[in-house]
């Protein structure tokens, strides 16, 4: 166990002590104890920065289940470090923010920080694991801790609904990913990501390549809220705002992005990978930004905005995968898309984190997040307003913030995509820049809605529960730090160069050199710049006329939304399975018997047909004497009488006839012990039947003939025939000699007895007899208990 293992596990270790700290230091907000850890971890990762930027990677393995190739292997490279910095950095800020956001007295802080620390550790595990099964374990742990955090206010029904929804969707994806991991394992024989990348030739040539690819993408798409799995994210906004800022904007939703980036060296270059990621990404981008405009809840706007931005990053990763296909080019113009993806990943984490915190402040200070009630807060909350402007403009892609830079690069990537001359891109290539451009206009609109509907316009104090004022300093510091980063990254993007370069090294296989990661403010008069100007112009126009065209959202039929599909699907599934269970679990024993016997007859017939067991010979048959014939006739007549008699009494008597004939058969076939026993047992059981008959209740004593049912008839006939066939078949295909010769000899010589049956019962196979008398004893005890210890309904005797 090395230091980095401890780093990953430290949040879990601290989580153990959080409840104790909460209990014994009641006067101090528990968050302060937690705050130190992410800061320390952040410093630790910063310390590794230089080393990783120099191109070094770090691998450390701790044995977990070595016999199955499952080991806790930690691999620190550019991509992992980038995410680890995001997780710990924003984690520290979120913890600080939550100290002021969550009340010490009213909230269950111990559970909150335990879940948050669990999540932090799990997320670090996801991005730093080299072993895919360990990665999967941490992946599911993020789902679980996210579930717990969303339902933090579990007494609200909407929280529970949102938590369940996100759980179902992300765990569905997680399990798909597990299947993908197993498929990759069958191809390569290893769970290690690095070793899988090393044997990429086997994987690409394998027939399971496409299924594995799709399964991995299912995992990534569900986690990263890509269309159509994005529906859980808006409902996850029921979580406390620090959670939304941390999980649902900066870290967990980027786990899918991480997975796509991490598995790119394995899958990139294949057309399926390119198409699925690019198309789903661009649709998510468009759909998210389009839907964000119609929202009235600030957090819902941010949720759809997150969905859209994640789609943006995803589509960039898809376009960037073309770089692997064209690796023979001197100047690879497609790497710029991946570069833009990584850069925007960082930018999005900064501005979206700060925007969530701003929204949290507004919610906290005014008591509502509804933009229809808000307005005119500019003068009351100037700092918050400034933060919102920085975050919002960056999100809209305006200069001089970092969002502008990554949006320019995004356009570059999309425009370059039209030059791809493979995979039908000649035909469909144009949809990428066009959709991207339209989506950017909507992004611009909702960013403006977010800023100006909240902070400008008419102040409506009568609609607010509280009298708004500026937030406490502790609540402002985290968004201020993030907003400063937005500005700093905007003006000096070069400081991120080393980190981005290191991350790109891990996304592209080693034979790639990402030499010039250049992020410029000024590209010259390029297409991208004109596109941005167009976005601003159209966006402003549309924002100002929003009231006129805003009702287009009403056109969209509400019944056709994905949420309705999800809800209806759940209800349908429940109803369907209930109906199915009701269909075969009728509660009538006769129906179950029909199923059991029908299945038995069918299965045996099929097996006999399959194995060709219908071969009958009468070579071993004995001669049939007249006594046997007569007895058999008596038995058949008695059996038929049982079926057709009207009264139960004659049925019991007929059954007795069958039993006594049986004992006569034993006499005929020279089995005196059996005959004796059969005689007495039959007498006893007939007596017991008569007893039952005598005690039948008066009401049901109606004398009824057995009713004829065709199904029962067919099934009983077929069971009878099948059993006869098996008997004949077994008798005519004897494979070994009987061992009875041994018993004949040994019963006197070795056991000192002349009654062979008895010797077998008590000596050779006494073990069977022992348990048969045990069965009898249990039966006697059972009857005794049933009759003597009957309880009435009240529970007394």
């Amino acid at each position, binding site marked *: 166990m090395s230091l980095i293992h401890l780093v990953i596990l430290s949040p879990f270790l601290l989580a153990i002590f959080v409840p104790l700290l909460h209990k014994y230091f009641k006067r101090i907000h528990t968050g302060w104890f937690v705050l130190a850890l992410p800061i320390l971890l952040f410093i630790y990762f910063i310390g590794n920065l230089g080393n990783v930027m120099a191109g070094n990677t770090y691998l450390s393995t701790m044995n977990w289940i070595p016999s199955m190739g499952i080991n806790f292997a930690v691999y620190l490279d550019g991509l992992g470090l980038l995410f680890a910095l995001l997780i710990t950095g924003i984690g520290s800020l979120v913890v600080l923010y939550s100290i002021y956001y969550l009340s010490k007295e009213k909230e269950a802080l111990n559970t909150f920080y335990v879940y948050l620390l669990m999540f932090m550790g799990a997320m670090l595990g996801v991005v730093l694991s080299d072993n895919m099964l360990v990665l999967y374990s941490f992946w599911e742990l993020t789902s679980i801790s996210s579930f717990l955090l969303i339902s933090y206010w579990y007494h609200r029904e909407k929280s529970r609904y949102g938590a369940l929804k996100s759980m179902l969707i992300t765990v569905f994806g997680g399990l798909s990913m597990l299947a993908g991991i197993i498929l990759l394992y069958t191809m390569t024989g290893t769970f290690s990501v690095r070793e899988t990348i090393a044997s990429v030739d086997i994987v690409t040539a394998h027939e399971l390549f496409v299924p594995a690819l799709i399964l991995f993408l299912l995992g990534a798409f569900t986690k990263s809220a890509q269309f159509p799995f994005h529906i859980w994210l808006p409902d996850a906004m029921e979580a406390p705002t620090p959670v939304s800022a941390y999980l649902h904007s900066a870290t967990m939703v980027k786990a899918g992005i991480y997975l796509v980036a991490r598995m790119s060296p394995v899958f990139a270059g294949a057309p399926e990978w390119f198409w699925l990621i690019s198309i789903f990404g661009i649709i998510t981008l468009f759909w998210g930004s389009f839907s964000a405009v119609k929202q009235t809840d600030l957090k819902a706007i941010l949720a759809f905005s997150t969905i859209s931005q994640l789609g943006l990053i995803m589509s960039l990763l898809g376009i960037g995968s073309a770089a692997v296909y064209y690796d023979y080019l001197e100047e690879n113009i497609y790497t710029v898309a991946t570069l833009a993806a990584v850069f925007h990943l960082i930018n999005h984490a900064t501005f979206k984190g700060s925007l969530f915190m701003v929204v949290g402040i507004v919610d906290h200070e005014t008591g509502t997040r509804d933009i229809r009630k808000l307005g005119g807060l500019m003068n009351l909350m100037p700092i918050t307003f400034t933060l919102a402007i920085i975050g919002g403009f960056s999100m809209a892609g305006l200069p001089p913030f970092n969002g502008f830079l990554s949006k320019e690069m995004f356009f570059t990537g999309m425009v370059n995509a039209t030059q791809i001359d493979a995979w039908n891109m000649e035909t469909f290539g144009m949809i990428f820049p066009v959709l991207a451009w339209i989506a950017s206009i909507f992004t611009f609109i909702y960013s403006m809605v977010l800023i100006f509907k909240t902070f400008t316009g008419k102040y409506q104090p009568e609609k607010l529960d509280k009298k708004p004022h500026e937030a406490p300093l502790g609540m402002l510091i985290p968004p201020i730090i993030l907003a400063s980063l937005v500005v700093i990254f905007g003006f000096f993007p070069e400081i991120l160069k080393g980190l981005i370069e290191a991350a790109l090294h891990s996304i592209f296989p080693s034979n790639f050199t990402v030499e010039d990661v250049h992020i410029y403010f000024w590209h010259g008069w390029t297409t991208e710049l004109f596109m941005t100007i167009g976005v601003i112009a159209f966006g402003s126009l549309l924002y100002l006329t929003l009231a006129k065209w805003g009702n287009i959202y009403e056109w969209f039929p509400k019944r056709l939304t994905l949420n309705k599909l999800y809800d209806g699907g759940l209800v349908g599934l429940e109803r369907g399975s209930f109906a199915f269970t009701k269909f075969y679990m009728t509660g009538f024993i006769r129906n179950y018997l029909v199923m059991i016997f029908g299945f038995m007859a069918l299965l045996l017939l099929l097996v006999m047909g399959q194995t060709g067991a219908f071969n009958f010979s009468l070579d071993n048959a004995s001669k049939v004497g007249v006594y046997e014939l007569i007895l058999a006739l008596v038995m058949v007549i008695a059996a038929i009488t049982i079926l057709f008699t009207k009264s139960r009494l004659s049925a019991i008597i007929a059954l007795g006839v069958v039993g006594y004939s049986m004992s006569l058969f034993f006499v005929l076939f020279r089995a005196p012990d059996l005959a004796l026993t059969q005689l007495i047992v039959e007498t006893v059981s007939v007596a017991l039947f008569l007893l039952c008959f005598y005690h039948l209740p008066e009401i049901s004593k109606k004398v009824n003939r057995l009713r004829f049912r065709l199904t029962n008839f067919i099934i009983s006939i077929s069971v009878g025939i099948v059993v006869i066939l098996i008997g004949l078949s077994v008798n005519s295909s004897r494979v070994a000699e009987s061992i009875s010769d041994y018993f004949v000899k040994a019963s006197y010589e070795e056991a000192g*007895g002349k*009654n062979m049956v008895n010797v077998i019962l008590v000596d050779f196979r006494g073990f069977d007899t022992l348990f048969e*008398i045990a069965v009898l004893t249990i039966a006697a005890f059972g009857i005794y208990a049933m009759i003597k210890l009957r309880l009435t309904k009240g529970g007394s005797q």
Partner: protein
Amino acid sequence: MKVNDLILQTVTTFLAFIIFIFSIYLFFAGHYTPGGGFIGGLMTSAALVLLLLAYDIKTMQKALPINFLTVAAVGLMISILTGVGAFLFDVPFLTHAFQYIELPILGKTALASTLAFDLGVYLVVVGIAMTIIQTIGESE
């Protein structure tokens, strides 16, 4: 009207003993001729049932104050112990042995440990048969 069962009761008094002796015969003869613990036990119960029919349950319990559940349990115990006894001679569970002995009256007789096992079977069968019949008979 009180039924007078004099003939039945008188005959039963004789018959029950004859059946009982026959059942003992069946039990002991089991190793050489048809019979054994199971059928012997059933016959003994038949004798007891005959007594039950001729008299009534209360009289029976006075004459034979036995809890037949205990009889079944003791029988099962004897059978198991017979099997366990094999361990004393360092042989597998339920290994039986037999020996020819000269007895004063009966002469040369085989004495087998299977007899003890069969005794267990016998007692279990008597116990359960009587328990079932008595329990059902007593129930209202």
